């Protein structure tokens, strides 16, 4: 995992953030991500991100759950251990539907949580680089990926002109790798990486 250079601009207002995102993108800079304290409606659209496929995965997990439940119960109650319950047919579909439903929900929920964690690169013991700690509190943090042609000073000035209250340049690991970030350097004063 290579370290990369990023220019970080911090905004304290949604109303400033949206035009800034638009400006930065039209000027040709590549926004890696915008970290916000809460879900901002329409930001993913403004960033031009592709729609997540998490729900497709969820549908597949759900179908898997339904199929698992149906095949298990029907095998058990018709082939493996048929029981006479109140004179009902062995293949008693209405009675199984609650279980099929529950397993659908269980598979979909657990599967989606795990997939979500994988996609967001979240796991126990994995440390991730924080571009700004206040992104979890009250700042909207825009992270722009640098190339060899990027003039960081120009970019910082550009962000300030567009309403950023704080800008800086940071070197950070982009991906994730269990155990790698423990040795991360302290990137700015007062921060504990």
């Amino acid at each position: 995992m290579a370290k990369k250079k990023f220019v970080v601009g911090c905004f304290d207002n949604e109303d400033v953030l949206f035009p800034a995102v638009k400006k930065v993108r039209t000027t040709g800079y590549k926004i890696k991500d915008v970290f916000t304290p809460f879900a901002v409606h329409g930001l993913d659209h403004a960033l031009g991100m592709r729609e997540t496929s998490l729900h497709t995965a969820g549908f597949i997990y759900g179908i898997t759950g339904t199929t698992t439940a149906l095949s298990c119960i029907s095998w058990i109650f018709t082939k493996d251990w048929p029981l006479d319950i109140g004179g009902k047919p062995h293949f008693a579909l209405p009675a199984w539907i609650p279980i099929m439903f529950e397993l659908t929900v269980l598979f979909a929920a657990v599967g989606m949580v795990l997939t979500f964690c994988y996609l967001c690169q979240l796991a126990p013991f994995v440390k991730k680089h924080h571009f700004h700690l206040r992104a979890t509190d009250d700042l909207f943090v825009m992270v722009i990926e640098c190339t060899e042609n990027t003039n960081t000073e120009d970019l910082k000035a550009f962000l300030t002109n567009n309403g950023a209250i704080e800008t800086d340049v940071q070197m950070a690991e982009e991906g994730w790798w269990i155990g790698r970030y423990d040795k991360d350097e302290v990137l700015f004063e007062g921060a504990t990486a």
Partner: protein
Amino acid sequence: MASIRQSFEIPGKMKTWSFALMGIGIVALIAGFVTKGMSKDHHEQDIFLGTLMYNTIFWTLVCNASMFFLCVTTMAWGGWQQSFRRIPEAISTMVPIFGAITLVVLLYVAFSGSHIYHWTDTVAVANDPILKGKSGFLNIKFFTIWTVLAIVLWSFLGWRMRKLSAQADEAAMDGETGAKFILSNTVRAATFLVWFGLTVGSTVPWLWMMSIDAHWYSTMYSWYNFASTFVAGMSLVALWVIYLKNKGYLEYTNQEHLHDVGKFMFAFSVFWTYLWFSQYMLIWYSNQPEETIYFKHRVQGPYKGIFFLNLIINFICPLLILMKRSAKRNYTLVTFMAVLIIFGHWIDYYQQIMGSISKEHVTMGWLDFGILSLFVGMMIFGVSKALASKPLIPKYHPFLKESIVHHT
């Protein structure tokens, strides 16, 4: 604000269509009256009355559901529905009209000594311990008072909501008048909802429909019917939104709003199925004759096809087709699904009422579709009239901006 089109002009074609549908309906009504209604055979008479019953009840409750939608979103302080709120308002203007027709039909059924409401037969009730036990609820006096009260109050409380909404056309509101306006909206919406809960949410479907099977009961029944009419009502709202969008009205309404309406259509289809299943499964599982009697001829008898078609149209289709985000934002798909859902719940009402009146054979035929076309024609005519009489966008509503910038 200058460029928005505020007044809806009824296209000539729409008028022609609504008159044509009403014409077909009236011909069917008269033909039905002559061939079935005046027949010496009680069974034929019941079929005629039953057909009128399920159509009138269905359309009244569907139109009433749009006022329920407005009140619920008002109570939740929702902003997103403001840009198209005149559509549910216009649909709810049909409640007094359809309600009056329902009242006439129901009172006729109750007072004419027809066989549909077995509990109106005093001799039979006197010798029947079950019906005797229910006679505190199932008696003509209570039926009449409650039916009149329900319809009058739906109309009146809905009218108060619409009247208040007209204030949003008059003059700009400052913070204080705006807050007052929202508060009185909330209060009026709450009043409507309490009455809605006491009627559609509980007693009215028991009284009007479930009492046809006088011995049978299900506590799920009313909620089931509420879900049925609400999802059909949301589909109706979606159809009108799409129609007006296609004609170039409702500039502030876009896919985002349609997406949310689509979510209601999807979610309440699932909710309806949940209630359908809860009602069916408990009865199937406990397998007691006095309960299974309701499902006997529906699941194993002549209504088998319609009973399962109902489940396919109202559950499987919305579940699979409306699940995707892009489907709920696609005008063509939502139109298709809205028509399908309205038709599906109309079928649902058909099997609930006619399945109890005509147990031996399915009566679906020209009369059903004729009466349906009568009501669709009246609905198109009435709603377009109501839309044309008011500005389409409540331009001074305090929450309108929230609706304009709405994102899902």
